[in-house]
């Protein structure tokens, strides 16, 4: 009888016990870059020889893989492993990777591929493999003119980046900037454009007049910038494809600090007259000019939010340069920067959640980010002089320029482009053939 009773009790209580599967919470992980292997793209002998003729490159397959490797490395999120350690030949790896081999060198992901010449076109297949799961994560093929081979490398990088981080990449992009030469007191400045990794550099102006602050439109076909053509500082518009230039608007004085609206239909800029600078927009279709701010102070460096509803700008209406946000019609102006020091060059992130800025405090310049209401200020980098951040299209990296302090004789001046990601740890020099300033990052070209 007691036995029965016991069994009864056990039967009642048992289900509860069985149901309780142990759960363990994991709330931390390491922040090390993901180790991956970029195998050189395999190439057949015939195509290899053809490409040697067309592109003057010894092995286009490995050249492309180097582009991918460099891109992923500069992102700071990946750790491409040394090719010396690779055990499997590129051609076999592309067919069927021996995952144990790649696992052995600690690669968690593997990129393989194949280049060939098809109908005088460059054809690239590539695959992304999950080494630990021993399976393919992605496979894509591109066909393009051979001269576009660098872009193929960038597109592959973007695809891999997107698959592994869950976020769009930023490698198939360009940067427009001001190339600088000559002594500090007589700088010669030209507009220049290059791939995000510094290749394919091209000058867009000759350097006869001072040019400043170029910025891309959303399609990256047009650039708006400040030129001192005939000693009249005005905002200009340049079509990169055709090379045509025109003055924006007919202002009786200096216009400067131009930027496009997110739809590309307007240019927003400052117009300085009688010691005050106000913000104006000009519609590029109907040429209608609108005054947005009306204050005796200096209002400049306007930047739209990605939805076009708000404008961030800097103003010294409080007595010192600070960052303000207003509605796009100029109403409801709110100051958002309240930290110590001066704040300038607000730039709204493409994600819309942050505003990047330059801060001057106690003789140091900082690049930082804050939320759009001014909270959560985070300084990413400190230096003698740096300013003018511009966002990568995915909103993870900022490019800006940095100038060096001169010595007692006034020598040693230089200006260079630098990039830093939102973590603040991954700071890199962006190599340019000349000195450089005022960078602006394009959108993704392949979208």
């Amino acid at each position: 009888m007691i036995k029965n009773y016991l069994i009864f009790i056990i039967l009642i209580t048992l289900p509860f016990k069985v149901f309780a599967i142990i759960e363990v919470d994991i709330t931390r992980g390491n922040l090390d870059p993901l180790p991956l292997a970029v195998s050189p793209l395999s190439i057949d002998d015939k195509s290899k020889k053809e490409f040697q003729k067309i592109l003057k490159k010894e092995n286009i397959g490995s050249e492309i893989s180097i582009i991918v490797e460099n891109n992923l490395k500069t992102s700071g999120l990946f750790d491409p492993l040394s090719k010396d350690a690779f055990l499997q030949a590129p051609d076999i790896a592309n067919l069927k990777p021996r995952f144990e081999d790649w696992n052995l060198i600690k690669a968690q992901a593997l990129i393989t591929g194949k280049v060939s010449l098809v109908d005088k076109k460059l054809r690239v297949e590539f695959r992304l493999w999950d080494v630990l799961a021993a399976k393919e994560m992605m496979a894509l093929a591109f066909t393009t003119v051979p001269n576009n081979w660098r872009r193929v490398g960038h597109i592959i990088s973007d695809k891999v980046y997107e698959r592994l981080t869950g976020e769009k990449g930023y490698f198939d992009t360009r940067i427009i900037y001001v190339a600088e030469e000559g002594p500090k007191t007589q700088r010669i400045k030209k507009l220049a454009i290059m791939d995000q990794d510094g290749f394919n550099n091209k000058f867009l102006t000759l350097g006869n007049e001072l040019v400043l602050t170029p910025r891309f439109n959303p399609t990256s076909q047009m650039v708006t910038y400040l030129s001192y053509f005939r000693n009249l500082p005005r905002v200009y518009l340049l079509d990169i494809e055709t090379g045509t230039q025109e003055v924006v608007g007919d202002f009786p004085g200096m216009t400067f600090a131009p930027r496009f609206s997110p739809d590309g239909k307007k240019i927003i800029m400052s117009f300085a007259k009688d010691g005050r600078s106000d913000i104006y927009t000009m519609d590029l279709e109907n040429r209608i000019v609108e005054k947005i701010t009306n204050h005796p102070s200096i209002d400049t460096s306007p930047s739209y939010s990605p939805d076009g509803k708000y404008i961030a700008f800097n103003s010294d209406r409080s007595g010192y340069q600070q960052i303000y946000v207003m509605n796009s019609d100029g109403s409801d102006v709110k100051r958002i920067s309240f930290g110590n020091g001066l704040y300038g060059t607000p730039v709204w992130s493409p994600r819309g959640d942050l505003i990047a800025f330059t801060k001057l405090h106690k003789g140091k310049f900082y690049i930082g980010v804050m939320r759009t209401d001014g909270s959560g200020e985070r300084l990413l980098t400190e230096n003698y002089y740096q300013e003018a951040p511009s966002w990568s299209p995915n909103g993870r990296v900022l490019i800006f320029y940095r100038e060096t302090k001169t010595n007692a004789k006034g020598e040693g001046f230089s200006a260079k482009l630098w990039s830093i990601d939102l973590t603040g740890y991954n700071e890199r020099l962006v190599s340019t053939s000349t000195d450089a300033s005022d960078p602006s990052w394009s959108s993704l070209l392949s979208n």
Partner: protein
Amino acid sequence: MILNKIFKNTLLLLAACLVLSACATKKEVATEAIKGQMQGDVYTGTDSVEYLADGVPDRVFFATNESILTTASRETLRAQAAWLRKNSSINVVLEGHADERGTREYNLALGERRANSAKDYLMTYGISSDRISVLSYGKERPVDSGSNPLAWSKNRRSVTVKAN
């Protein structure tokens, strides 16, 4: 015993003060050379100054982030006004500049504001606004390429240039 301790402590404190003040005076001596050419942080020297005519300096200087004219600046501008009245055929461009310690775009506006405060002063002395145009270079055209307070003070300026 306690008194003794207090006495000792005060002595120590005094010694520390002396040591520190010695440091301070030394620094002052070092900056004295610069001070000779600066008042506050406005340049008062004549290093980069050129002359439009005898006794008519071509430029005025400003304090950091300021566009207010100093007494010396007003004197210079009055001389320029007198010279402009005498030479009524001459038009001028006022070129406003800023030092390198600011963001480019703000400095462009600041240069414009400085040149304008010079223009306003010339106008109050009877020079027609038709004869004066204003141009800002921001931080783009320093006269002194140094990275020190003295160099910066020389660069914060508005220069009157003959336009014809």
